[in-house]
């Protein structure tokens, strides 16, 4: 059984919701990432979403764009990101790791080579923002051959018919983008999200994670009441940005992010 699947089954038994933090690998420097991953697990993260830096992140708002830019100053490549995960796996063999990024770095490596390298490194799922199932004829089989879960997005503009189509290709979990917009958007309407999740749950048995617009413990808890998982990204990356250029920045970043995640964990479990 995949780590993602068993993670959700465990949580279900305990009647808990998954907390999924997102950080960009190599942000603000490559030294921090593995330590930060362990710290996030310690503070209550169930699954880690690790952003692969890309020069042209067109689905991301300014906060995550800048995270990519900071990581690219050090030339953090997809290969580097996989090496970080391999190191993380030396001490943690249970927490699922999902790569989130754009297609071009994967494309240039080649789907098969990428999938094999990701599996070897200990990756569990891959969310590529700019590949809808229509273009994923070769991509999905390559991932599945190497036991990687293809994670797909559903959005407020996705029709029921498309949901059915997309869910045929997805495994692990479904990522519901809660708002029309880019990452870091503020306006999130919990009632509307709940209504959409009801439809998604009719279409698929896969667990659904909700992302975009989750700012704090309060919004995390509100979304946790209607979904199986909450994804929090820009709120954490903001904390990276605030300390990106400080001398003892890495320490402070790990502390700040741990604090926010702990408060979200507590709110989710309450």
């Amino acid at each position: 059984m995949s780590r993602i699947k068993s993670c959700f089954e465990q949580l279900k038994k305990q009647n808990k919701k998954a907390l999924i933090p997102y950080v960009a690998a190599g942000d603000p420097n490559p030294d921090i990432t593995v330590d930060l991953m362990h710290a996030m697990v310690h503070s209550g993260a169930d699954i880690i979403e690790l952003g692969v830096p890309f020069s042209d992140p067109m689905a991301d708002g300014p906060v995550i764009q800048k995270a990519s830019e900071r990581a690219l100053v050090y030339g953090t490549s997809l290969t580097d990101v996989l090496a970080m995960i391999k190191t993380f796996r030396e001490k943690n063999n249970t927490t699922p790791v999902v790569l989130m990024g754009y297609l071009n770095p994967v494309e240039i490596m080649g789907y098969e080579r990428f999938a094999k390298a990701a599996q070897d490194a200990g990756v569990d799922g891959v969310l590529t923002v700019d590949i809808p199932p229509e273009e994923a004829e070769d991509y999905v089989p390559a991932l599945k051959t190497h036991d990687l879960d293809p994670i797909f997005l559903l959005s407020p503009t996705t029709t029921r018919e498309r949901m059915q189509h997309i869910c045929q290709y997805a495994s692990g979990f479904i990522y519901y983008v809660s708002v029309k917009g880019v990452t870091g958007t503020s306006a999130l309407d919990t009632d509307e999200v709940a209504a959409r999740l009801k439809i998604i749950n009719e279409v698929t048995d896969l667990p659904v994670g909700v992302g975009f617009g989750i700012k704090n413990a309060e919004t995390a808890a509100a979304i946790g009441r209607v979904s199986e998982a909450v994804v929090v990204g820009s709120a954490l990356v903001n904390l990276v940005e605030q300390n990106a250029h400080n001398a003892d920045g890495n320490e402070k970043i790990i502390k700040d992010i741990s604090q926010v995640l702990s408060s979200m964990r507590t709110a989710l479990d309450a």
Partner: protein
Amino acid sequence: MTSDTQTETRLSDMPDKKGHFGQYGGMFVPETLMEPLEELKQAYIKYMQDPEFLEELDNDLKNYVGRPSPLYFAERMSRELGGAKIYLKREDLNHTGAHKVNNTVGQMLLARRMGKTRIIAETGAGQHGVATATVAARLGLECVVYMGAEDIQRQALNVYRMKLLGARVVSVESGSRTLKDALNEAMRDWVTNIDKTFYIIGTAAGPHPYPALVRDFQAIIGRETRQQIMEHEGRFPDALVACIGGGSNAIGLFYPFVDDQEVSMYGVEAAGHGLETGEHAAPLCAGKPGVLHGNRTYLMEDKHGQIIPTHSVSAGLDYPGVGPEHSWLKDIGRANYVAVTDEEALDAFHELTKVEGIMPALESSHAIAYVKKLAPTMDKDQIIVVNLSGRGDKDIHTVATIDGIEF
């Protein structure tokens, strides 16, 4: 084997239903954009067969844009180069001074039919931004144009023109602060304001259906050329030449000839400081296939798949990708892609100005620069048609600065 009833696939039948030109093109976008793109595709299919729509488009092209644009025999330039006869397709004479308006007039009619009230666009040199702001002003629609901070400096005149036309010009400070970043920002706006917003993409790139849609609106260039060259010469040209940034003026000229194998095609990219220096904007000549801005196409990228900075003296060519149909035409060998340097383009700018009294845009100067190489290798009874895609007024400041002149 062959019979009259056998239906052959023609090159002009592309793209396929999913928007692919061979392995290129497609729809590589975040999920939120899939449904709006489907809506756009349906509207495009419907209205491109709607006689009323086509009549309105024809009328606008004739009376607002000023079409047909002349096909001018550049007699003195032909004589000086001592080879093929050179004809200039005068897109510089269109309203707003470039070919860009052919497409914005068309997309604006689509936007109105789809009930959209807000228009956004990206722009590099500012010609597409001006052409968009122009048609938005005419219909009284809100218009936001995204432009890289770097380009805003280089093209101050066009920025002011857009503002005069009532558009809001948003300076894009992310990434390399040029056209590609403006495109990212326009996509982000579109994803956020999808309900009432129509995104007018200016080149034959981006996710399906844009490459096909922009091509079809620009194909008026090639259709007129077919007729006009028959009137002048009684036969088709031997070669077509056009500059390539994203490639909309080139595909507009090439597409109506794509099934006529006897007509050679040359797309001219920006070699910047020289292909060997790496400082250029020539993905077809020196890049490799990848995925950016919604389509698979040739890109300027590093070995890790990051998009790399481009350079060209001409802002309109300063883009790391290219329309997917060009990538396909390159791979199947139907069109030739070449590159000329900043210096060669500047020489051509001066030469055409002096010899024919026509001041070309720096983008179009790249096409002229290649004609200077091609024409002498051809016979005197052969014919070249070059797309003079825009006029050079917007570039006078750039040229003057390079020549060491201050105003």
